[in-house]
Each structure stands twice: as structure tokens, then as C-alpha cells.
């Protein structure tokens, strides 16, 4: 265990989140149990009012979640000063089994909260709140996310040991290293690039075909967006490790996902990941919205929202491409060669 201001900040953030989320789940349970649209009793009025409490909290939760994602990365980066062998965030995260697990969970939670809010927004457009029970059941079902997060966080913090030497991005993402990180960087730039562009073209092609073809295909195509965007996210990370990062750092052997987030690289990573998250979040939500088919008016509204999500994800993807390949283009123009 290392007592450090950053760890303290994370502890405060996680506890706040869990506390608020618990309040939410408590109320969500009451709504799930007691909701009766046709009732005019005081209880129904109160439940209706509680829906406002819950959306406020989840909105806030998403905000804090994003903040914590940053804070977590910064913490990992800062703690590298304390942990022997760690040069940057990667070293801290890989110093025990929980670091990367927690990071992944945080990313998943962020997307889940975002999707819940979009569905909630959609449902609130309808006078009868048709999705109300499903919505709040879903909320109860995702309660394990913040709980797991706080557990993992404390495990992570307690297992940070300044007396153990850890490896860092130099070795984690090193070609000769074993393990996932190594094999990721190892799967040379060309493979990850082709994978990434495959997925991107698959996505865009699927959209094109979906627009052209009739109803049946439309549905399948739209549903496929959900897994495709997950693939997009993963391959985008791959490309960032093996290709984009080398041009940002202008070094062959430096394949780090975190170093470029900070001020030394003018917060390049913030923009890069921002566009990636926007694209993926909107894209996945677009796919999810396709699942809504009943009642007809809701489905119609869902399709409208879906269109917006498609647009946003498209621009997000373009932004990611531009941000991600910008350093490469600049380098190529300047030097006329590849790294």
C-alpha cells in the first residue's frame, strides 16, 4: 500500500460514486417494484419524481467516471516516481494484477453509463415511459460495476509495493517481451494497421449496404454496429500501440499508450482518446438502439436518435483518424521516410 495524494483522490472519487450509485439503485428498485402508469396514488407521483433523482445521479456519475478515468491514468503516471522500475503509467498498472483490469473495467463502465443515459433520454421523450421497468432493472443489474471498481481499486492500491521492481512500457510493449503487451507490439504495425482498416471499412461498408438494402438487412446491419464498434475500439488501441505511438514519440521502441496524454506531448492523447471514446460510445449506442422495436412510436424516435448517433460516430471516427495519423503524416512529409 502506498499512501499518496493521488491514491487518496481516487479513494474519494470511488467512494462518492459508489455511495451515489447505491442511492440510485435503492430508488431504482422502488420504481421497478412499484411503477404503475395508471395509478394516480401519491406513491406513483413520488416514483415519478424519483426518476429525476436517478437521472441526475447517473448524469453526475458519468461525469465523475470520466474524470476518474483521467485521474486514474494520472495517478498511475505519478506513482511511477515511487515504484522502482516504473517509468510511466504502464509500469504502475502492470506492477500488480489489478491495474489493467481496473482500467478496462473503468472503460466498460463509462460506455455502459453513457448508453444507459441515452436510452433514458429516449424513454423520457415518451409520455408513457414505455421502457421504465427495463431501464431501472438494467440499472440494478449494472450495480456490480461500481462495486467491482471499488474492490479492484483497493486491491490495486494495497498491492502497490515500492519494494518490488516492476517492468515498464519499454519491456511491457517490447517486441521481445512475453505476455499480451509484448505480442501486441510484436504483431507489427502492418498487421494491426490492416486489422484496423479492415474493421473500419467493414463498419463503413456495412453502413453503406444498410442504407441501400431493404428492411430485413437494415435491421441486421444496424445490430451489427454494436460488435463492430467494440472491434473498432480494440483495433484502434492496437494501432495506437504499434503504429501511432511510434510516430508521436518518433522512436521505434517506444510503444506507450499513456506517455502522450500528459503535458509533454501537449495533451495529444486527450484528443486522441476523446475522439475514440466519442466514436465508439455513439457507435455502440447506435447499435443498441436498434434493439428497440416496440412500441412503434418509440421505435421511430429510436431510429431518429440512432441516425444522430451514426453521424456522431462517423465524425468521431474521422477525428480519430486525423488525430491519430497526423503525427505520421507530419513525420513523413518532414523526413520522407517511415520509422
Amino acid at each position, binding site marked *: 500500500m502506498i499512501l499518496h495524494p493521488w491514491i487518496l483522490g481516487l479513494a474519494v472519487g470511488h467512494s462518492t460514486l459508489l455511495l451515489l450509485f447505491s442511492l440510485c439503485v435503492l430508488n431504482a428498485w422502488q420504481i421497478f417494484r412499484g411503477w404503475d*402508469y*395508471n395509478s*394516480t*396514488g*401519491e406513491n406513483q*407521483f413520488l416514483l*415519478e419524481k424519483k426518476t429525476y433523482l436517478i437521472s441526475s445521479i447517473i448524469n453526475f456519475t458519468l461525469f465523475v467516471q470520466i474524470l476518474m478515468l483521467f485521474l486514474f491514468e494520472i495517478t498511475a503516471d505519478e506513482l511511477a516516481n515511487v515504484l522502482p522500475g516504473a517509468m510511466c503509467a504502464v509500469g504502475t498498472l502492470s506492477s500488480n494484477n489489478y491495474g489493467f483490469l481496473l482500467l478496462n473495467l473503468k472503460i466498460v463502465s463509462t460506455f455502459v453509463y453513457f448508453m444507459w443515459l441515452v436510452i433514458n433520454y429516449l424513454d*423520457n421523450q415518451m*409520455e408513457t*415511459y414505455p421502457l421504465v421497468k427495463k431501464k431501472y432493472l438494467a440499472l440494478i443489474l449494472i450495480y456490480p460495476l461500481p462495486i467491482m471498481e471499488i474492490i479492484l481499486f483497493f486491491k490495486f492500491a494495497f498491492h502497490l509495493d515500492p519494494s518490488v521492481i516492476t517492468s515498464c512500457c519499454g519491456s511491457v510493449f517490447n517486441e521481445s517481451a512475453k505476455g499480451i503487451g509484448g505480442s501486441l507490439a510484436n504483431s507489427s504495425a502492418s498487421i494491426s494497421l490492416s486489422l484496423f482498416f479492415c474493421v473500419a471499412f467493414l463498419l463503413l461498408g456495412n453502413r453503406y449496404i444498410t442504407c441501400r438494402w431493404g428492411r430485413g438487412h437494415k435491421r441486421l446491419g444496424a445490430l451489427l454496429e454494436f460488435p463492430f464498434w467494440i472491434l473498432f475500439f480494440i483495433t484502434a488501441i492496437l494501432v495506437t500501440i504499434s503504429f501511432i505511438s511510434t510516430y508521436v514519440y518518433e522512436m521505434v521502441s517506444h510503444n506507450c499508450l499513456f506517455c502522450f496524454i500528459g503535458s509533454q506531448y501537449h495533451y495529444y492523447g486527450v484528443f486522441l482518446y476523446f475522439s475514440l471514446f466519442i466514436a465508439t460510445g455513439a457507435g455502440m449506442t447506435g447499435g443498441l438502439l436498434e434493439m428497440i422495436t416496440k412500441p412503434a412510436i418509440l421505435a421511430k424516435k429510436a431510429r431518429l436518435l440512432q441516425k444522430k448517433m451514426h453521424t456522431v460516430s462517423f465524425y468521431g471516427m474521422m477525428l480519430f483518424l486525423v488525430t491519430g495519423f497526423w503525427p505520421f503524416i507530419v513525420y513523413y512529409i518532414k523526413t520522407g521516410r517511415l520509422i
Partner: protein
Amino acid sequence: MDNHVIEIINVTKTYNKGKPNEVTAVKDTSLEINEGSLVVLKGSSGSGKTTLLSLIGCQTKPTTGEVIIQGKKVSKLPEKFMNLHKRKNIGFIFQHFQLIAGMSVLDNIMLPLIPEGISSKERYRRANQLLEQFNLTHRREFKTSSLSGGEQQRAAIARALINNPGILLADEPSAHLDSELTSSLLDHISRLKQSGHTILITSHDPDVYQKSMVDHIFEMKNGQIISS
């Protein structure tokens, strides 16, 4: 066929249901009001006039029964959608004017426009027009707490009208006015009636309900309409 802008079907409103202090303020009441008419609800204090008015004004939901405004059943709508209707169709003049004390007359009048996201230019245009109409232009920037009773009354009417509602509800509008101000108020009301507004007033003041422009008088007692 008559065009009912307001329809109330078997409405009951019970406060604190199931508790010892349970009160049924409106009991199984039905009512229809035609477009463009001026209707007065009279009755002794505690007979349920204000409650009925707030049911019509979408300020509260009935325990049972149906409230239909401009053909739309509003009684079961969630707040957000009920408010949409309220802002579009209803202007409410409350009993004690209910202006926000620390704010200027102008800001008070423009309050109902904020949820609509109306541009500030348009808001100022409408507000200035109403201030002119109700002779309040010189009090524009005054705090409402520094206004006289008549001015407060006029500001309250202006606020009720700023959304261009078709229906105007006024709860005891003459209760705090002397006879001179009451007659000026009635002038305003008659002008509003001429411009096509449907108006519903609660009052136990003969000066108000004995006017010839009144189309209907309903009398309430113990939460029910006993005569019309």
C-alpha cells in the same frame, strides 16, 4: 356543436390519502367550458375552488377522473408533458400574485418563457409589449416588492399572458383590491374576453360575478358544484 376547451369528467382530488388528515377537496365533479366564455366559480372559503382551478391549470393531478384541456387528456401525463401543455395553453393568475420578490418586474414577467428556450430578443419584445399594455413600462426595472397592489396585480396578469395562452385562470383576483382597482381589473378581463380568451375566475365578490359579461356562474360547496 360547442367547442369545449376545458372538460372535467368525474374528477376527485383527495389530499393526504390514507392519512388521518385526509381531505377530499373536490368530489366527483364534472364541468365543461366553451371556448371564449367567461366563467365564474363562486363559493365559500374551503369549498374547493382553488383546488378545482389548479386541476384545470395543470398544477396538480386528480386522484381520479379526467381533465381534458384543448382535447388533450392531461391528467395522467408525466410532469414534463403536462408542463408542455400548461405553458402552451394556460395562463394562471394566483391569489397572492406570487411574484418573486427580489426580481425586477421585467424578469418576473419573462420567467415562463425560459423553459421554452425562446430567444432573449423575442422575450424582451413580448414583455415590453405587455408592460406597455398594462401600463407598467415605468416600473420595468423595479423590484416587485416595491410595487403597489394594483401594479402587482397587473404584473401578475402580464406574466400569465406572456405565453399567449388561450385559457386564463384567475384565483380570487379581486380579493386584495379596492373597488376602483377591481373595476379596472374587470376592464382588463373584459378586453381579454373580447380578444378570444377563455377565462375562468374564482370569486366570492358580487362585484365580479354579477357583471353582464359573465357567461356562466358555478357555485361550489364541499368540493362539489351545486348549481350553475
